[in-house]
């Protein structure tokens, strides 16, 4: 088996016994199956046709696969609308979060040179210690007139203190020689930020953007709190309503078209809500260890 490739093993490592090897593999296989299987099941139900789900049938490999559920959703209606909202909020929000986080991180990266910036840094670090609470935050958003607007989903979370510290730490590790040399050549701070800081920290920026994006995409509490107009709801709230609270999905139903089973539509919504994350995941995965450890141990 693949386990016996010995390339990475140090010379003193014993050859593992067959028993321990198979035991290890068995445990890992169980872990992997437990993690993958539920998603597989959801995907396969979403692709099943009515015949696959009848009576006692369990649809792990749909025999008569169909995209009917997805067609129903994408024809328009509530889910499609929610999808557009989520994509918009996630794309704009991630961009705004990155702009705010990187600029402040750069502004606070030279606390010894810039008078007053250490004070701002303490303000930021202080927010790691406390949270004003649900009710004061709600009252603030209402006071600012942002209830039932999309900025309410983005603006209160523009900068996460944790992400800021990770990025700042990364900026501080960029050798001062580089920025000094650029300064000698007449570069201003904006050029240094844009031409040196950002390009050199792609790894950490990728991970931080992923964190912001995932948080915005899957956030359901803020929309629940701030958006009472159901027509403006993003995908997690629609998912909660139709899948978890079991409401019937009223969508754009074409006359004379066969209705797909309700479960398949529900599962198709789950799949659609998961796919964007699965799409970006492989591209960002190689930055994980690098990006996460930059700030995980010591802020």
């Amino acid at each position, binding site marked *: 088996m693949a386990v016996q490739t010995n390339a990475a093993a140090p010379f003193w490592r014993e050859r593992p016994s067959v028993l321990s090897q198979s035991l290890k593999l068995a445990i890992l296989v169980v872990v992997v199956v437990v993690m993958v299987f539920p998603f597989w099941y959801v995907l396969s139900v979403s692709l099943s046709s009515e015949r696959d789900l009848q009576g006692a049938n369990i649809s792990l490999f749909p025999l008569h696969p169909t995209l009917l559920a997805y067609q129903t959703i994408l024809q328009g209606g509530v889910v499609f609308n929610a999808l557009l909202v989520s994509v918009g909020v996630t794309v704009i929000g991630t961009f705004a979060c990155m702009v705010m986080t990187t600029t402040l991180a750069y502004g606070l990266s030279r606390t010894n040179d810039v008078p007053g910036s250490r004070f701002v840094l303490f303000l930021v670090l202080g927010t790691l210690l406390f949270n004003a609470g649900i009710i004061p935050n709600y009252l*603030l958003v209402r006071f600012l007139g942002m209830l039932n607007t999309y900025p309410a989903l983005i603006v209160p979370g523009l900068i996460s203190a944790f992400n800021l510290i990770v990025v700042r730490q990364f900026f501080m590790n960029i050798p001062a020689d580089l920025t000094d040399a650029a300064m000698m050549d007449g570069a201003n701070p904006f050029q240094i930020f844009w031409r040196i800081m950002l390009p050199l920290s792609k790894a950490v920026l990728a991970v931080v953007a992923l964190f912001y994006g995932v948080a915005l995409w899957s956030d359901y509490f803020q929309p629940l709190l701030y958006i009472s107009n159901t027509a403006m709801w993003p995908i997690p709230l629609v998912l909660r309503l139709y899948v978890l609270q079991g409401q019937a999905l009223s969508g754009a139903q074409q006359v004379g078209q066969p209705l797909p089973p309700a479960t398949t539509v529900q599962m198709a919504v789950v799949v659609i809500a998961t796919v964007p994350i699965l799409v970006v995941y492989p591209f960002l995965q190689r930055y994980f260890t690098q990006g996460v450890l930059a700030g995980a141990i010591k802020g």
Partner: protein
Amino acid sequence: MIQESTTTAVAIRPRPQPLARLRWWPNAHVWSKVRRERWMYAFILPGFLFFVVFRYLPLLGNVVAFEDYSPYLGFFNSRWVGLDNFAALFTNPAVGNALLNTLIINGLQILCYFPATIGLALLLNSLISVPLKRVIQSIVYLPYFIGWVVLVSVWASVLGGDGLLNHILGNWGLPPVNLMRNPAAFKPMMVLQYLFKNVGWGTIIFLAAISKIEPYLYEAAVVDGAGPWQRLWHVTLPGIRGIAVLLLILNLGNVLTTGFEQILLQEPAVGAQAGDVLDTFVYFQGILAGNWGLSAAVGLCKGVFGTVLIILANKVAHLLGEQGVF
């Protein structure tokens, strides 16, 4: 040569200015720095305003905890009731129930998370095949990036009333069980879901700690005749002890907070007795039931104790000789 370089270093260093420290108003030296770095303030200002408005300003909102607050009257016109809300908090059995549930669920989550994560990290680390390790890592990291709504929906599709489990039980002629709506199963389910989502991702930090252990420690152990289990016990585990203690303490510091989104989603199915935690209590009582003063008081108490716990946890980390977070 050496002599020369030290003298230049001394010459470059700015003169000490003992009086400047005592003055509150910045002196000319500081002002010249400010002018030189003026563009840096353009970077700082937007973020600074964000933190003031969205992190510090809401703290004032906690004044609601001392009022019989009504949204129509606002902060200034609502009746001031002093500590009445806090008195009500201690006599309200629902608050005690929420606190107990919070501590039980978080306690169980922490208790199970660490052995599972460290175990999985050790298992992954012992794999010799690098490609196999990579594949398994990318699979187990993934649930961390799936939001709670999707995750709970997926669980419900397998374990819920109309889910796969009940189809199988039905085919075998067994009575159905609904694990998602059973109050007795609620707390174990919360723990299992938490493990499902977080254990894989948690290994990343332990794997990094394991990879930082010096190879000569293992070599010395082998020379002394240590087998694989002895190396695990005497080299690997001591090597990751520091980070494990740090993470454990930090988790204990957050014991009043975690799990909010996960529980808010699933509490309606099992009722408040089994599922209410402090944060969901605040949401249901305050935002939904309009019981603003009481729930703001609960939120404020939670916030203050939470802050104290985090600071204490950090102190304990330092006392144990580990790096804290600050």
